[in-house]
């Protein structure tokens, strides 16, 4: 930088610092040093020209354009032609001088990887255009390469970000790569799968490593872009529960996103250890736009964070490495907000239920004791009552049994009666039949009786005649006599009597007694 320019640069820098002081912000937030040096270089004289300077957005143009142009136009130094100073540089000095100009020319270049030469901790490769012959010598530190999870291969299409630089030792012009992005779905997918596999082996996704989110988190670190919908979605659905939100604005897309996000995570861990949860979020997008979240650098930052991290990246179907490493993975920014706020939503009910619980339980227990006391008193009575009722029951059951058997007996009597009536009918007919037959017999008897009577009369007459004939008195009439001894015994033989013995004679009429004089044998 020649002296004129150096003076002008210094002037511009001072003005910038004053403006920053007035606004109460950091100087780099007004204008970056690299922008200042570009303005110094090109010395735009109009707003239009100034607008073409890289880093001069519309906002900055309206805010700071005036003082810059004032500095340029008001400075007579700038309008004088450059005086070439005869300064002699050493090689090293010259290269330093050139590099001072080159290094701020950061750029993003897209091309195809051609030749690769890997050393221990760095790699040289060339980037070429597809059809036009043009070669860019690139240099990348191995650690950078690894953190992007890109494996260099010939023909691989890349987007690289970095700055040009001449390497002193070999004098070669190089593009030093600070960020690498893959181009094309296929390559991205492949890189994603490879990194996923690697990190899985290294234990990045292990559930045992996941930190729990406090149920009632209050202090939250929000890492997202100030411009994205994700921020608003998250804040809207968080509800109002007295959260203290510390918002850290980062780019969520492009090659710078990785650095900004990893710095943000580191920043919270180093400066705000009392934050209870970090929310890393962005809206949905293509695999390419989500690329930062599939980088090893972000995976490592999430893994190393002492503060638990909730990721909500893209739509529900977007799976990123960051999600896999995160302590909690929310499907959307809204979901992340719910994870943090739902416990607060539900705790109101929980408090009410605890309140009713402890009040009613205490009351119940108290009532219980009262009940027990009353129970003690009434126990005696109830014991007796129990015995009585037990006895009563037994008596009653006996009574029931008795009644039952009584009914059974009555039933049997009834049955017998019924049987008897049935039989009685039968017997009656039998008797009637008998009586009839007896009547018949009687009639027959009456008819026969007269005949029998006569027969009997005749035979009786006959018997009388015969009897008359055998009557001894009849013989006496005829003159026969009967002799008895004193003992009234009929004497039929002389042997029955002795000489001198008195004997009695019986005649038909009267009798006589005499003495035996002589016996004849």
């Amino acid at each position, binding site marked *: 930088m020649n002296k004129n320019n150096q003076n002008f640069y210094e002037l511009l820098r001072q003005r910038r610092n004053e403006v920053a002081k007035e606004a109460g912000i950091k100087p780099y937030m007004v204008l970056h040093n690299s922008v200042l040096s570009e303005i110094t270089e090109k010395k735009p004289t109009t707003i239009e020209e100034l607008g073409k300077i890289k880093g001069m957005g519309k906002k900055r143009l309206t805010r700071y354009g005036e003082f810059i142009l004032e500095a340029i136009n008001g400075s007579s130094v700038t309008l004088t032609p450059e005086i070439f100073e005869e300064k002699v540089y050493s090689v090293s000095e010259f290269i330093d001088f050139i590099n001072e100009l080159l290094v701020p020319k950061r750029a993003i270049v897209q091309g195809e990887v051609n030749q690769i030469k890997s050393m221990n901790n760095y790699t040289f490769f060339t980037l070429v255009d597809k059809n036009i012959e043009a070669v860019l010598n690139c240099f990348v530190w191995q650690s950078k390469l690894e953190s992007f999870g890109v494996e260099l291969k010939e023909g691989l299409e890349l987007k690289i970000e970095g700055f040009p630089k001449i390497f002193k030792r070999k004098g070669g012009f190089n593009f030093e790569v600070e960020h690498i992005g893959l181009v094309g779905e296929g390559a991205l997918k492949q890189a994603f799968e490879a990194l996923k596999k690697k990190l899985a082996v290294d234990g990045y996704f292990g559930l045992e490593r996941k930190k729990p989110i406090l149920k*009632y988190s209050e202090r939250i670190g929000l890492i997202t872009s100030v411009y994205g919908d994700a921020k608003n979605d998250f804040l809207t659905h968080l509800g109002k*529960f007295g959260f203290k*939100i510390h*918002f850290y604005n980062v780019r969520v897309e492009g090659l710078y996103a990785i650095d900004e996000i990893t710095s943000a995570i580191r920043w919270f861990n180093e400066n705000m250890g009392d934050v209870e949860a970090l929310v890393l979020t962005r809206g949905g997008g293509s695999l390419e736009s989500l690329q930062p979240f599939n980088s090893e650098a972000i995976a490592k930052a999430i893994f190393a964070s002492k503060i638990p991290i909730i990721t909500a990246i893209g739509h529900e179907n977007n799976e990123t490495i960051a999600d896999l490493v995160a302590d909690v993975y929310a499907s959307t920014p809204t979901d992340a907000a719910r994870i943090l706020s739902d416990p607060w939503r539900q705790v109101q009910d929980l*408090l009410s239920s*605890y*309140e009713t619980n*402890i009040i009613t339980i205490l009351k119940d227990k108290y009532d219980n004791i009262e009940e027990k006391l009353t129970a003690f008193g009434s126990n005696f009575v109830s014991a007796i009552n129990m015995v009585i009722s037990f006895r009563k029951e037994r008596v009653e059951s006996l009574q029931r049994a008795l009644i039952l058997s009584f009914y059974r007996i009555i039933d049997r009597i009834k049955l017998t009666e019924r049987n008897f009536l049935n039989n009685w009918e039968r017997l009656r007919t039998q008797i009637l039949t008998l009586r009839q037959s007896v009547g018949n017999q009687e009639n027959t008897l009456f008819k026969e009786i007269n005949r029998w009577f006569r027969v009997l009369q005749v035979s009786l007459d006959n018997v009388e005649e015969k009897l008359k004939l055998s009557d001894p008195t009849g013989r006496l009439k005829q003159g026969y006599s009967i002799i008895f001894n004193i003992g009234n015994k009929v004497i039929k033989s002389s042997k029955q009597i002795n000489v001198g013995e008195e004997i009695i004679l019986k005649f038909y009429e009267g009798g006589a007694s005499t003495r035996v004089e002589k016996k004849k044998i």
Partner: protein
Amino acid sequence: MNEKEDKSFDFAKAIEELEEINRWFQNEEIDLDAGLSKFRRGLELIKKSRERLKQVENEFKEIKKEFGGEEILTEEPE
């Protein structure tokens, strides 16, 4: 044990303690004296928690970060 009205009321701890008290009350046999003191503590925690829930407005602060973008560290391969 004399807990004054401290400003840094830990809501999560309060809810945890309430859970504990609630669980204690679910036990079959409870001591009535201990029950009364736990009951009082429970109601106090419920009251405090409800007060915390009344502070609904969120605070939002953007972090002003100081980028290290000013200096560009360059080193060369050996």
